[in-house]
């Protein structure tokens, strides 16, 4: 055991970190589709964030900084518990979680399932952009990859989603119209 450092954390900083709990959970869940693991990852991220508050130079970048910590927490989790998911290759689908099964919207459940089928790197990029509205440059910083990689992963992810989802979405819309 070694003491790594002492730090002071202001109440304001803690409050700002707390505000990010839900967005972090949403992202974590969209990456792993495991509610329990998402809860753990978010707790871990917030603790690490508090512990490393002094490393955040630009307070305006708090959210992106926490997302980067979250990405590292997920990486650490995979490293310690199972072989790391390939970042950019096709992955077999995970089993649908009970939470996903209970999602009221069939479409939402299907979208989650298709996101889950994406390789981790594509999944992370598309959710950072679509769920949290990060710019490509910010996503590159969060995931520590070049912006070109962000764009190509996003492109592949959306193409895969387009192929798998647009037909399904159209069928759902037709169903709704016929009910009306």
């Amino acid at each position, binding site marked *: *055991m*070694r*003491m*790594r*450092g*002492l*730090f*002071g*954390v202001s*109440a304001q900083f*803690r*409050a700002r*970190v*707390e505000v990010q*709990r*839900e967005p972090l*959970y*949403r992202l974590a*869940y*969209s990456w792993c589709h495991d*509610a*329990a693991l*998402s*809860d*753990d990852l*978010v*707790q*871990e991220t*917030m*603790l690490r964030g*508090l*512990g490393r508050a002094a490393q955040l130079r630009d307070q305006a970048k708090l959210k992106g900084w926490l997302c980067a910590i979250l990405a590292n927490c997920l990486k650490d989790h995979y490293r*310690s518990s199972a072989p790391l998911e390939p970042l950019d290759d096709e992955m077999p689908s995970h089993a649908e979680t*009970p939470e996903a099964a209970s*999602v009221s*919207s069939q*479409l*939402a*459940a299907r*979208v*989650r399932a298709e*996101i889950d089928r994406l390789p981790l790197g594509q999944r992370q990029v*598309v*959710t950072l*952009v*679509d*769920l949290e509205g990060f*710019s*490509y440059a910010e996503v590159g910083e969060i995931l520590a990859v070049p912006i070109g990689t962000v*764009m*190509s992963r*996003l*492109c592949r992810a*959306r*193409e895969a*989603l*387009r192929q798998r*989802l*647009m037909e399904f*979405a159209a069928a759902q819309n037709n169903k709704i119209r016929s009910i009306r």
Partner: protein
Amino acid sequence: MSQEREVSREMQNAFVDGQLDAADWTALVERMGNDEALRRQVCELRTLKDMVKSAYASARPHGTAPAADRRGWARVAGLALVFALAGWLTHDATERIGAAAALRGVAANGLVVHVASSRGEVVNTALEEVEDYLRDARTAGRKVRVEIVANQTGLDILRADKSTYSKRLERLRAMYPNLTYIACHQTADRLREKGVKVTLLPGVHFAPTALDEIVKRMQQGWVYIRA
């Protein structure tokens, strides 16, 4: 952007994500006016983007602390310094002695030790360090309190049906009444949802989440150590 060349998927994505500069944005809008296929593709991308956003709109953290507890985060204005020890490192004797000396120099009234893994080296190191710390404090006549907070797979060490450390934990607790074991309720709930019956060792208390317990103790000026 050339009118003749096909608009790449990257460019279309950048358009729907608001990543184009003004000139490219304008050029693409003009192009869409005359290109039905492009309009349809961009429309699909927008739809996809909305579908992804909607699919996770209801995702909320489970076991989020009640609002009253969460407000506690914002009430820590009086906290001047929080001491954090970011990790148990090697088992090297010199380092451990150094760490014990460092801890003796910390004017904290408590130590919260977070165990999030059931891996042997993590748990053994944590328990060794806690025992050293408690013994040193007793020898020095210092009144301290120590909490071991377990979550994730670390909860296993506090489970009656799983723990291979029950005797050791019981012995420590008997020797040091100022040592408390705290289990993460959220982790236990998760196990129960999966049909696992969770029975804790005698004398183990629950906290809503490990994070809430750790933050509560940090607010009180305790030292936080991640095992």
